[in-house]
């Protein structure tokens, strides 16, 4: 009979091995290779990234697209989920199931669905032509990508905001009403400060979700639209011009932005919590 500790060890070791070999080691190796060339240690890949206006443009596009799509989805869902509070539990559950279903609808299938709707011979495009309207809208551009990004952000925003809203107890609203607060006053003085950290957290997750996204933009425009994630893919896939070290450097910077975002989020949440309890 093995003693308890040994058995526990045997259970945790496979997990630790998987985590090491399929997560930590590849990432560390990537980090190291972003700093090396055939001669040894170098900063040339980072220098290249920071001076190459095309790559910088890709980062800028990614940042703006992620920020705008996260903000729009957040505001829309803040309003939408608030409306959900007035429905019965049964209806709310149905709405959540729908949101769950659409949350799986992303990447290549989603890009295709938007091509069916708004592509060159898409449903809406044809209808508009029929009515003689020229919106000069192209799905294969920034605004087209924004529509797709908002689509995959919305279900995530709804699912993250729903429990935050429902964390606000009915009793608090009643107590505030008894003390003479209007609905507006309740949300201004009590409701919003309580949900604020959760809303910031949701925004961070949405931003990160968009920032690392690759599949829908790739399915829509190949490597043509310039995003940081797309640049990485193009640099490691190119058979002739593959520059894996450069791809590693971009990937490291992308990861750094993610981590900074998460830390900023943590700091902001802590700060608002402290401000709240200090009142």
């Amino acid at each position, binding site marked *: 009979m093995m003693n308890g500790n040994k058995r526990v060890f045997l259970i945790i070791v496979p997990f630790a091995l998987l985590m090491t070999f399929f997560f930590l080691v590849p990432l560390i190796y*990537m980090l190291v290779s972003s700093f090396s060339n055939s001669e040894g240690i170098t900063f040339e890949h980072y220098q290249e990234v920071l001076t190459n206006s095309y790559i910088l443009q890709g980062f800028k596009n990614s940042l703006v697209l992620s920020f705008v799509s996260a903000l729009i989805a957040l505001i829309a869902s803040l309003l939408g989920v608030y409306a959900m509070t007035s429905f019965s539990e049964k209806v709310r559950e149905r709405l959540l199931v729908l949101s769950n279903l659409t949350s799986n*609808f992303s990447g290549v299938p989603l890009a295709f669905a938007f091509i069916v709707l708004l592509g060159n011979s898409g449903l809406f495009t044809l209808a508009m032509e029929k009515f003689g309207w020229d919106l000069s809208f192209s799905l294969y551009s920034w605004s087209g990508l924004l529509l797709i990004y908002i689509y995959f952000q919305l279900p995530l925003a709804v699912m993250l905001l729903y429990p935050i809203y429902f964390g606000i107890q009915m009793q608090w609203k009643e107590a505030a009403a008894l003390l003479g607060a209007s609905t507006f006053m309740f949300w201004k003085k009590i409701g919003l400060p309580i949900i604020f950290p959760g809303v910031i957290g949701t925004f961070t997750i949405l931003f990160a979700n968009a920032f690392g996204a690759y599949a829908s933009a790739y*399915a829509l425009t190949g490597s043509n639209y310039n995003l940081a994630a797309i640049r990485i893919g193009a640099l490691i896939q190119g058979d002739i011009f593959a520059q894996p070290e450069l791809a590693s450097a971009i990937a490291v910077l992308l990861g750094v932005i993610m981590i900074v975002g998460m830390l900023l989020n943590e700091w902001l949440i802590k700060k608002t919590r402290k401000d709240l309890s200090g009142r």
Partner: protein
Amino acid sequence: MKKLTIVMLILIGIYLTLPIVATALYAFSTEWNKTVLPEGLTVEWLTALFQDSRFIEAFGRSILLSGGAVLISILFIVPAIFVIVLYYPSLEKWFQASVVMVYAFPGVILAVGLIRFYSGTSLPMIIAVIGVYVISVLPYMYQGTRNSLRNIQGRQLMDAAELLGATKVEAFRRVLLPSVYPGLFVSVLLSFSILFGEFVLINLVVGSRFETVQIYLMEKLSTSGHLASAIVFVYIVLMGILTIVMAALTKKAKGMTSA
């Protein structure tokens, strides 16, 4: 104000369903190039798809890949989660740090790491992808398992069963597992559906050498719109079934804890 929020909810609903409805309609339409609505309905594309052996094979590969990764995760990751949550709460913060890290790093970064590291070794790339898949579902597995264990107060339940004379293994199999099973099963289905839709890693690391449904779809995107919409339709139906099963199980799990 209230009216505005309800209008917004309806708009969100329309925005989320419209692309799905349009794609499904396109999958069943004969000709849809000039008119606002399809000229006729047909199951031609769907039948063609299911007679296409490349699609069937791609579908099988997708199931094998995502199912295999989830299975490995059940066998090797879930037991570790159990042990740590139940008996080593002090290790949990390390575990949570891993979960956050896995969640924060997108597939495109992991793909670079995998290619850089494993292209120099003799390990087949597809194995490397499965390995990353196993790790990438960690957040969902952890969340689901931990929540169910907390809801039923797993530690107390194990201790009580052992006090009544059960061995650890018996207590685990007869008492703990049946109570966390619905929650765990939801995590498994969620992980499976996420991996089934995965495109970035498999495309960048392995490519068309291992054609999954997503890669097959990507190719059909530019060659046949109708076939592509049939693939997306099948994909949506599969995801719909999984979502409904998950919703029912979650409800059941909730009922068990409140009873």
